[in-house]
């Protein structure tokens, strides 16, 4: 009895692992096919523009407001700590480096995943559930080229811009709280920031991070939507999975990228 129990459990574990590896393989093949068939999305750029509108422009409010508040909180918290060491002039450095290197790409990515990624999954999943994708195939229109690819490129193009806006807004928020409210010297705030933030090492690496996160989030979103079981339950499950998987992927990739970018460099 016991042995059979253990065996059943092991089998379930094995099946779970196999399913995940299989899905990963399918997702990679899907990405390859998607990139190969992106011709329509890029030639008829209007399709992609509309998706940039849905993924990027409509995410602007949440990105800008969150960025502002994150920057303001960073300035408040940072000042509390820095002032103990008599280094409150370094507030600008702290705010700018934390935003440009880490918080900008990561928090913007998480917000993007929950705001735009979930919408993409739900949209494609519902299209599949209501057999719109099959109808397209019947009309000899490739749904991946017509529906999935524009959404993918729209997300990939929007994400770096959103992350840059998040960082810029956060630095502005830090400036408002640090300089206007607390009274850190404005000259020291900006000049120390400019002295410490390197364009290639910090800003470019932050942009690379946001591009990678954009690809990861949008890939997961379109794949989950395309792979969703064509039922109401299936679509809702796929939407949840998009948010969970892309959040985990962002944090995992962030660790890898940070380890690659910011250690062992000549700069630090």
């Amino acid at each position, binding site marked *: 009895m016991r042995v059979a129990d253990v065996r059943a459990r092991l089998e379930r574990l094995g099946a779970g692992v196999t399913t995940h590896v299989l899905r990963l393989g399918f997702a990679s093949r899907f990405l390859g096919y998607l990139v190969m068939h992106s011709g329509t999305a890029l030639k008829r750029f209007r399709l992609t523009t509309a998706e*940039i509108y849905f993924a990027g*422009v409509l995410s602007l409010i949440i990105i800008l407001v969150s960025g502002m508040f994150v920057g303001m909180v960073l300035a408040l918290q940072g000042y509390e700590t820095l002032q103990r060491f008599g280094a409150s002039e370094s507030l600008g450095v702290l705010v700018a480096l934390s935003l440009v290197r880490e918080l900008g790409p990561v928090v913007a990515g998480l917000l993007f995943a929950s705001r735009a990624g979930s919408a993409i999954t739900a949209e494609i999943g519902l299209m599949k559930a209501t057999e719109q994708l099959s109808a397209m195939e019947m009309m000899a229109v490739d749904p991946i080229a017509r529906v999935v690819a524009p959404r993918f490129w729209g997300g990939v193009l929007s994400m770096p811009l959103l992350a*840059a806006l998040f960082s810029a807004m956060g630095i502005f928020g830090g400036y408002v709280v640090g300089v206007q409210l607390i009274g850190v010297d404005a000259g020291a705030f900006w000049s120390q920031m400019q*002295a410490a933030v390197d364009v290639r090492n910090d800003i470019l690496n932050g942009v690379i991070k946001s591009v990678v996160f954009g690809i990861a989030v949008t890939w997961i979103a379109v794949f989950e939507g395309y792979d969703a079981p064509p039922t109401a339950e299936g679509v809702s499950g796929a939407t949840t999975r998009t948010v969970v998987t892309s959040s985990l992927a962002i944090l995992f990739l962030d660790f890898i990228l940070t380890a690659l970018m910011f250690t062992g460099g000549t700069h630090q």
Partner: protein
Amino acid sequence: MNRSTIDLWVGVFVVAGVAGLLFLALKVGNLASFSTSQTYQVQAKFANIGGLKVRGPVKSAGVVVGRVTDIRFDNETYEAIVTINLGAEYQFPRDTTAKILTSGILGEQYVGLEAGGDGVMLKNGDRLRLTQSAVVLENLISQFLFNKAAEGKPEAKEPAK
């Protein structure tokens, strides 16, 4: 939503995003202060450079006049060779002293130049002869402790007598 309205908003979004990137690069980063103007290179040997880093500032009278471009180790004299790029508009006498200084107590280290009195100015490829190494905190503390111990010895023996 109208097609052209969407296009307009996407255009606004892209412009705003690029503006954000430019803001980061120019106002937050130091791309604007990357001087493309003429520079000349001088070298200086230090027994100890402490925490000096490549791209660290070179200051004279507190004004940034150049950047550290290279730090190497000399295998023959066991000293550090620091290469400095100075702006061509800043001319220094040949007997200028280079010191490694620290801004604040825990601040970054930089090269401080103190002009000498020589009539001949530094040229590209020259070497600064007079240098002063970084102050290493541990050495300073141990020196202080040795001095204290030397002072304390006679006093400590007195009550024993």
